Each structure stands twice: as structure tokens, then as C-alpha cells.
């Protein structure tokens, strides 16, 4: 495919009509909560989009994000767009290995300097100069810093890349950090989740390819279109929360009736993601729909947010021990202060002596 080819020509060659393309764009816009009136313009612009070079770096990760992406179904446009992008390096998906793979990365970095899109999944260990994770003898830290220099923008896919994720959970032995912790001079889009919803990954990438710009982000770098509302607010069980109807165990009457899972540790109230609307597995369901609470996987430091089965309002540390200690120490301090009070009272009493009019007269005479 020629460098200056565009998506519209590819569609024509594949025999995909512009009507079909418009339909895909409509579905894409609907899933991204974009105004439907923007769709025709979006389709026109996307048809003119040039082939985009993409470098995908995987660091401390489990490949779950790539698994999720490759299972993305909606809106099928991804098959078009991913045929259209030039994925120049992705060590799970590429055929090349060893020196050839690394050479492909370096070549793409040099050829498309300042123009390629860098996608990162996995956190970056920085303890001991980053020796905890290396690829072809190069630390993740070094590889990210090198690749970030020539990138047009960076997409941090998955909670590990976006916020440190599991590797960063206390006590964080490898000193894992997120992409934003290391790079501050490039636009960065975070697509957190463990893994993120496949359609969300493709939706954000399609948005980037269409508009050539990053979508509107929230305070922790997530696209508002997908992370604008909490799971709790869009949950179909929300009405039970409001009515005070809760499942107390996973097999009681409440659980069977589909009542709210708040008491069973659902982190829906503190989690921003679109699982409740976009859903998983070809829109089959999402965790709460299959009877399990949300674990809050798209939030920074979610591994340290308390047990999966502990309610949001439960304290994260033991309070009983400190409480008992405080009461004992307080009692001891109270006794000590009372003893001091008594002592000062006694010493005042001891200094007390009787004064007669004679002694006063004598005092005056002096």
C-alpha cells in the first residue's frame, strides 16, 4: 500500500460501499457518545485519513489488553482501520522476532519520526535503573524514553500503562510507574481497565485517526466519552441501591432477585468506565449483570483500594487495635493528669498558713 494512500481508496478496492462505511461510522459515534449530526463529516474525514504508523510497546503486562483488543467486535470498523494502520512493531502480534523485530521498531521510529502513534501496555519498572524488565537487553525505561521522543502522541492501554496497575500495587517491588509518570512532553491518552473494553480501545484509536487529535480527557487522562460516568450511575441495579435493597451474600434471596451488590464489595460507585453501557463479549453483559460486583479496575491504584469483597465505605486498615490502644493510653494519660492536679492542689494546701492581725501589723511596720 502506498504511503499517501487513504482509507477511502482502500474501501473502494475492498468493494465496501460508502453507505456501509457511513453505517460503521454511525455505530462508532453512537458508542463514543458523539453527536450523531457529526457522523457524515466524520465519515468524510476518516475516508481521507492517511495510513498511520503505529508502534506498540509491551512492558510489565499480561497481554490481556491485546487479547481484549483482538476480540473487539463493534463496530467492525476496527477491522478496516487496523488493516489500514501500519502496525510496525507489536511483539505479540508480529511475525518477526529477535534482531529483525527490534530493527523494524528502530526503522519505523526513524522513518516516521514525529508522526507515529505510540501505544504502550504494561507498567515501567524504574527500581535499580529498570533492570526488572528488559527486551533484547534494553530496559523498558530506556525503550519508552527513546520511542516517546519521536511520537506524535502516546496511548497508554490498560491500567498498568495508565496508572501502574498490578505491578505498582503495594509494596511495588520493581518500582513500577505509569507512562504519565515518565513522559510529560507528549499528549497522552489513558485507556485504563484490566483489561479495557476492546470497543473502547478501537473507538479511541478510531477517534484519533479520524480527527488527528486526542479526545476530551478527564483529570486522570481518560476519554470522557467512555469514562465520563461511574458504573454505579449507569447500573441497571441502581434503583435497588436507592431503595435500600441489597444482596447480603452471593446466594441469598436478594442476590437471586438481582439487588444491589454494594455490601458485597461492588466498587461501582467509585469507578469510572463504560462497562454498564458498552458491555463485554459482543454486548452480552458486564460483571454486575453476571452477579459479581465491580472491582474498580479502571481506577488508579485499584489494587490498593481494599479487598474485592469489602464495601466502598469500609476502612482500609484495622481500627480496633489502635482504638483499644488509644483508650488505654487515654486512660493512663487521664490518671497522670489527675495525679498532677492532685499534687498541685496538695502543694497549694501545704503552702497555706494562718495569718493573724498581729503578723499583718508587723508586716506593715517593716
Amino acid at each position, binding site marked *: 500500500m502506498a504511503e499517501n494512500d487513504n482509507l*477511502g481508496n482502500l474501501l*473502494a478496492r475492498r468493494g*465496501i*460501499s*460508502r*453507505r*456501509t462505511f*457511513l*453505517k*460503521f461510522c*454511525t*455505530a462508532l*459515534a*453512537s458508542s463514543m*457518545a458523539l453527536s*450523531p*449530526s457529526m*457522523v*457524515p463529516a466524520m465519515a468524510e474525514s476518516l*475516508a481521507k485519513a492517511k495510513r498511520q504508523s503505529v508502534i506498540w510497546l509491551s512492558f510489565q503486562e499480561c497481554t490481556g489488553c491485546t487479547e481484549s483488543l483482538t476480540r473487539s*467486535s*463493534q*463496530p*467492525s470498523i476496527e477491522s478496516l482501520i487496523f488493516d489500514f494502520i501500519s502496525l510496525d512493531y507489536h511483539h505479540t502480534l508480529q511475525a518477526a522476532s529477535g534482531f529483525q523485530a527490534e530493527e523494524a521498531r528502530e526503522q519505523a521510529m526513524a522513518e516516521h519520526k514525529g508522526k507515529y502513534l505510540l501505544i504502550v501496555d504494561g507498567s515501567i519498572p524504574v527500581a535499580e535503573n529498570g533492570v526488572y524488565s528488559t527486551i533484547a537487553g534494553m530496559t523498558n525505561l530506556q525503550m519508552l524514553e527513546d520511542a516517546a521522543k519521536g511520537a506524535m502522541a502516546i496511548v497508554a492501554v490498560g491500567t498498568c500503562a495508565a496508572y501502574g496497575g498490578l505491578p505498582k500495587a503495594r509494596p511495588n517491588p520493581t518500582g513500577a510507574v505509569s507512562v504519565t509518570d515518565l513522559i510529560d512532553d507528549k499528549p497522552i491518552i489513558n485507556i485504563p481497565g484490566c483489561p479495557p473494553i476492546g470497543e473502547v480501545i478501537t473507538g479511541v484509536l478510531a477517534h484519533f485517526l479520524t480527527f488527528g487529535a486526542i479526545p476530551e480527557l478527564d483529570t486522570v487522562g481518560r476519554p470522557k466519552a467512555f469514562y465520563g460516568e461511574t458504573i454505579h450511575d*449507569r447500573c441497571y441495579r441502581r*434503583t*435497588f441501591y*436507592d*431503595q435500600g435493597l441489597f444482596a447480603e451474600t452471593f446466594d441469598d434471596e436478594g442476590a*437471586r*432477585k*438481582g439487588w444491589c451488590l454494594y455490601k458485597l464489595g461492588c466498587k461501582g460507585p467509585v469507578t469510572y468506565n463504560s462497562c454498564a*453501557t458498552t458491555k463485554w463479549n*459482543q*454486548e*452480552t453483559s458486564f460483571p454486575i449483570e453476571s452477579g459479581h460486583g465491580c472491582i474498580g479496575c479502571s481506577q488508579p491504584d485499584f489494587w490498593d483500594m481494599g479487598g474485592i469483597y469489602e464495601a466502598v465505605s469500609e476502612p482500609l486498615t484495622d481500627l480496633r487495635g489502635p482504638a483499644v490502644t488509644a483508650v488505654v493510653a487515654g486512660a493512663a494519660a487521664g490518671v497522670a493528669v489527675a495525679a498532677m492536679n492532685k499534687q498541685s492542689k496538695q502543694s497549694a494546701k501545704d503552702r497555706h498558713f494562718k495569718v493573724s492581725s498581729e503578723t499583718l501589723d508587723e508586716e506593715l511596720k517593716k
Partner: protein
Amino acid sequence: MTRLQDIPVNTEITGLDAECNMVDAVLHELKQLLDAYLSSGETGVIDIKSMPLSATDYDSLKQRLGNGEISATASLAGDTEIYETALSGVWWVVHRNIDDRVLAEQLEVGRIPAILCAHDDDIRVARERL
């Protein structure tokens, strides 16, 4: 094998479900879109799929709008169903993929839904083929 939809699921009907009436909101928006079309010729779209419509709301909206004179099915990598509602100029458009899953569902206001129009690029390709 038992299919997913064959497994009985106990769902409590809550008062809230019936109460939250989005239909009036949709009808009101349609009114505004029709006004805009009549005054400036500007077409408009309402995304039904992303609206928090309950099943009751959805059915009642469909009933309120009714069926008009035209209906069409477009085969665009999965069927797209289009029909004019009883209100002239208000079109109900449902996009499905190959697995028959709804990708998008919209109400379009205008003379003809955009999806029915042929694109110039496609027409150009057609001319080349002759």
C-alpha cells in the same frame, strides 16, 4: 443445549421503571428538529440507543410514532432497516451487524435518511465500471 435466553431470570419490576418517562422528552426533541428543518432545511438525528430508555418507554415511543408509507432494508454488512414513521419526515433507522446485533438506532429528521443516498465517490466508481 440451553440457550442463554431460555434460562429464566427473575427480574423485579420496580416502580421506577414505569415512572421514568423519556418518551415525552424524545417527542419534544423531535418537535424542535422538525421546526429546524422547516425553517432552515437542516436535518437532525436523535441517537436512541444511547438514551436510557426502559423497555416500556421504547415500546410506547414506537407506538406513539407509528408506521408511515415507506420502509426499506439496506444490506450493508448486516441489515439496516429504515421506515418512515406516521410523521412524515421522521425516519426510524436501525443498523444491525452480520450477527443481527443492533449497532445503532436513530430517529432521523429530513426528506430522506442519509444512509439511503448514494455517495459521489461510489457513483464515480460506478461510472468507471461502465
